């Protein structure tokens, strides 16, 4: 099996089951920082575990801003994989994050909105909060290139 057809099966299986936890488990860095996902009435809610190794500032203490960014990038990518009209692999083009409040060493949640899904490009917005969804700790936006999945018999 080629790597590409492997990726295709992986994505199609996840989209069919709607279960992102298996996919998250297969992403080493997402597992390292402790990303998980649940669903509520409004959609997917991603969580970042307050691991000691996610701290960036021991004086405050506060989570590493880059870890919060990585968490939100993961959330945006997975949301798009699942929400896109057809199974395509999102490739991140750019990412921008605004830090609105200090992220304390407590669980962080994030919710994503696919703002636009075009033929080739997608724009996703991500908002992260800790104690109160109305008081976000960070907001982010990213652009993706939507790559066609290679057919199952193509060579990678």
């Amino acid at each position, binding site marked *: 099996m080629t790597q590409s057809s492997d990726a295709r099966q*992986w994505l199609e299986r996840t989209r069919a089951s709607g279960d992102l936890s298996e996919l998250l488990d297969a992403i080493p*860095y997402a597992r390292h920082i402790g990303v998980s996902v649940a669903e509520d009435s409004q959609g997917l809610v991603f969580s970042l575990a307050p691991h000691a190794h996610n701290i960036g500032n021991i004086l405050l203490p506060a989570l590493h801003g880059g870890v919060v960014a990585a968490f939100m990038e993961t959330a945006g990518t997975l949301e798009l994989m699942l929400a896109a009209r057809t199974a395509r692999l999102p490739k991140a083009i750019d990412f921008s994050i605004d830090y609105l409040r200090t992220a304390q060493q407590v669980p962080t949640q994030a919710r994503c909105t696919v703002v636009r899904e075009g033929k080739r490009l997608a724009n996703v917005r991500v908002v992260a909060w800790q104690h109160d969804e109305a008081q976000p700790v960070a907001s982010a936006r990213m652009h993706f290139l939507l790559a066609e999945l290679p057919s199952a018999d193509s060579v990678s």
Partner: protein
Amino acid sequence: MPITSPSLPPSFADWRTAIERFVQVVPHTQGLGLEVLEVAPPVVRMRLPWSETLLGDPHRGLIHGGVLSMTLDTLCGASVLCGLPEPEVCPTLDLRVDHYRPALGGLAVYGEARVVRVTASMVFTEGTLWQKEGRPIARGIANFVRLGPRNTPPGFAAALFGETLVAQPGEQSAEEI
């Protein structure tokens, strides 16, 4: 608190030691083994060694995009320290990352960041990451807020250049800027 004697500004070697301390007390980057290669204020160079933990796409064997954001945030933040007249605590206001090409698993990530402009309240920085010389994988632009000497913990500079940084519960937070 003066960094050293006023007539003797820190040397490049002093700065390298200071930035190494800064990176070593950050649990996340310490855990991943981020190394400081060179500090020539206001430019900082680092190397993130390859490890399986960095993977974001195991099927294509690519490093997680978030690893690159995290490294750029750290690099740009470190450049801020040595780009100011005296080190201050400066939270990141925002960060933008452009992904130029995929970051390949199995290779270390090298990076360089510099302070572009310092104003009374802001520090503007930019950074670049690469794996092979001359082939950048990502560019980052990060802006930092100066909290000023008044909001910088006493002994912050001394800790960077002298004794070990000790965790103290801080008072300042982004809400108070």
